[in-house]
């Protein structure tokens, strides 16, 4: 929308803030396994997550709003994920990408956490092994919907 000189818009500050926030959901670099390859292709031009304003993958949890847990979570990784999640500034959201992050997937063994939701709260689960990049994009749009509707994270949804 273009506003010419002399014209103006009226809106509630809440809505504007939510619109801005939902259009700049910055993910944390949290690639753990092969799902991370699909996550990277989401960032690449063919799928281009920049259309949603989420192309800035941050290496610091302080600058990230969204954790995309992409891959199986090893028992050794679980405390690190928890710590990074705690270090992210509120409000924050979590996407559990793929079968392994959501439930342990095929790795029903001693080394893999059976679902990252035993460690951190998850907002959106993306099924697939790995999920398609479209699936992950859809999950991000679900996060955006949550934000625009005033959600503060912790609402369960399935992409």
């Amino acid at each position: 929308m273009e506003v010419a000189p002399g014209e103006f818009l009226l809106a509630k500050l809440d809505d504007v803030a939510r619109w801005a926030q939902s259009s700049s959901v910055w993910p944390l670099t949290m690639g753990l396994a092969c799902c991370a390859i699909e996550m990277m292709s989401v960032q690449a031009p063919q799928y281009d997550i920049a259309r949603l304003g989420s192309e800035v993958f941050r290496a610091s949890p302080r600058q990230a709003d969204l954790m995309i847990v992409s891959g199986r979570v090893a028992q050794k990784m679980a405390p690190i994920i928890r710590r990074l999640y705690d270090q992210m500034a509120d409000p924050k959201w979590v996407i559990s990408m793929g079968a392994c992050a959501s439930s342990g997937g095929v790795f029903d063994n001693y080394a893999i956490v059976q679902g990252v939701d035993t460690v951190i709260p998850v907002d959106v689960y993306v099924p697939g092994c790995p999920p398609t990049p479209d699936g992950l994009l859809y999950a991000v749009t679900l996060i955006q919907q949550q934000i625009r509707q005033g959600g503060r994270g912790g609402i369960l949804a399935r992409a």
Partner: protein
Amino acid sequence: MPSPQTPSVGGTALDPTSLRPPIDDAEIERCEPNMLRARLSALRDAGATMLLDVGAVDYPEREPRFDVVYHLLALPASAATVAEVGRPRRIRVLVGVAGEPPRVPSVADLWASADWAEREIFDLFGIVFDGHPDLRRIQMPDDWEGYPLRKDYPLRGPAREKTPRPAFALKSNVPAGTPPSGAVAAALQRQIAKARGQEPPA
């Protein structure tokens, strides 16, 4: 020193190396733990300058229970023919390790590459390498209990060993009485042909 390909441990029938055919051109030999360091340093001085890997095998019913396997490579020192370069000498030294915890002398001072390899075996098999400079877990978390690659370690871990698996995980995908795969494909083709209203294939 040339050695027989299939040396066995104490004449036991449970030693798989006595049954297994040689899988490559490596010279395989067995060694007693107290002779291990002497043998390995002799091999190193004789040209086996590279320790490719250290492995371990758990034979729960055998005594000694564990085998530690040293994979050595002797690269030609100088001016070799192409054939020699292409086929460097490979030596595999097996040592049976008994006791709890099983103990074996470390060779981390002979080859630097033994450092992490021995830590990995300590981590996953609980074999203690005497004289290792820094024997800590390397893959599992520091506070992990148990040694996951031992055969008596439960696959799903001690904590979840008793929890029931979901019903679908216990069921086979293949129904009982399934005919061999070629017959399945043929039956599928007949069904497809029937659905399309075609003549079924012979």
